[in-house]
């Protein structure tokens, strides 16, 4: 491929039909409470790992919904499963199970981070 000194940029448009739904499908099948998220952010604000790193579970879960899985592995590995988010979630989402399902899902579907 020829180098012209510039490349096409990836479209930021969410094309719903092209979303990689494997992981989100797996999570929702096994933990339907994840459907109830209203993105209030209390999980992220209270997060023990978020206090130490850039971990943002709310953003990550949105990205997973959009099939944007390029950094999921690296990010999810920051979670310490302490369960504070579980106690804070106003929608009663079983967040710890969601985390474990993300981890397992990444393994099942062999989803790797983009280098």
């Amino acid at each position, binding site marked *: 491929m020829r180098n012209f000194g510039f490349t096409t940029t990836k479209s930021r448009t969410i094309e719903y039909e092209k979303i990689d739904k494997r992981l989100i499908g797996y999570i929702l099948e096994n933990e339907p409470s994840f459907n109830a998220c*209203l*993105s209030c952010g*209390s999980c*992220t*604000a209270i997060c023990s790992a978020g206090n130490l790193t850039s971990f*943002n579970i709310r953003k990550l879960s949105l990205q997973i919904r959009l099939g944007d899985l390029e950094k999921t592995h690296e990010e999810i590995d920051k979670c310490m499963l302490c369960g504070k988010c579980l106690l804070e979630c*106003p929608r009663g989402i079983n967040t710890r199970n969601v985390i474990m399902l993300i981890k397992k899902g990444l393994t099942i579907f062999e989803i790797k981070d983009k280098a």
Partner: protein
Amino acid sequence: MIDVLIIGGGIAGIETACSLQDLGYETIIVEKEKTIGGHLNDWDTLFPTHRSASEVLAHYTDETRRRALTIYLNTNVISVKKQDDGSFEVHTSRDVVFRSKTVVLASGYRLFNAEKKEEYGYGIYDNVITSADLEKKLKQLNGEFKTPTDKVPEKIAFIHCVGSRDEKSGNHYCSKLCCVTAVKQAIHMKQLCPNANVFCCYMDLRMYGPGFEEMYREAQEKYHVQFIRGRLSEVGENANGTLQLKVEDTLAARPCKIQVDLLVLMVGMEADKSTELFQQSCGLQCAPNRFVKPKDHHIGSNLTNIDGFFTAGACIGPMSVFDTVNHAKAVAFSVRDYLNATK
């Protein structure tokens, strides 16, 4: 036997009594407190006009006096029993037993106990107050506004949805009036402390009523109230008594720390304890949110599962002053229809 016994002497109860009197019925009101007016006694101003609450209260006190309404103050209802003839026998903490053809429940609501959201620090940190506390404070305000630790606040945060829309509080529903109250109070605080930074941390802003959205816009444009879309998760206290809030600014997708001098928790409305009493004594049906369940949400919101037992105001769910007044006016017609039909 009297025509209607009204439980609760708040604005719902008084308005019901007035409307029923206009229709020619004899009523008595049973009120557990030593004065009428209910929660209105505690409020400083009302949204969306910033009108003084005492002005509205005065209207009802005057009406009560002018119409010579029968009111039993300091009286608790102990049980309501439906008789075979369809009438009601109402036992109270006084020795009197009332007999009435109908009962109108106008017992209103109670406020969420903010201590239950322990991570918000109410009852633990001095400078955490509830919206109701703020109203009382504003009502009694004499001179400069100061925080409980006696400081003119430079930063104030209002937290929406405390005890509402929260599985952890056991309240899944929206209290619907806290959003606009927060905006009203935020404006009020800006008027009192023009140099203060005022924040509102919200999940969704529900400005459903007439004038609400305009007020929200005014808070942004004129008063520079800052709205942060994120739900408070944790409050810590700094050595100097200021509070550290942890909230995610979800629109920026970044965790956010705010240091404030005063934290106001917008406590939601919960069903009054008395509804449980009526559940037990006369089988009144309540909805899963513990408020009284209307017989028909659309065309019979004043009716309950018990014939002759009506509701007026916030005992069926969170309700504003003007909705309460309308609901109370409406119940008079429901009562009339019932009494005419059973004559």
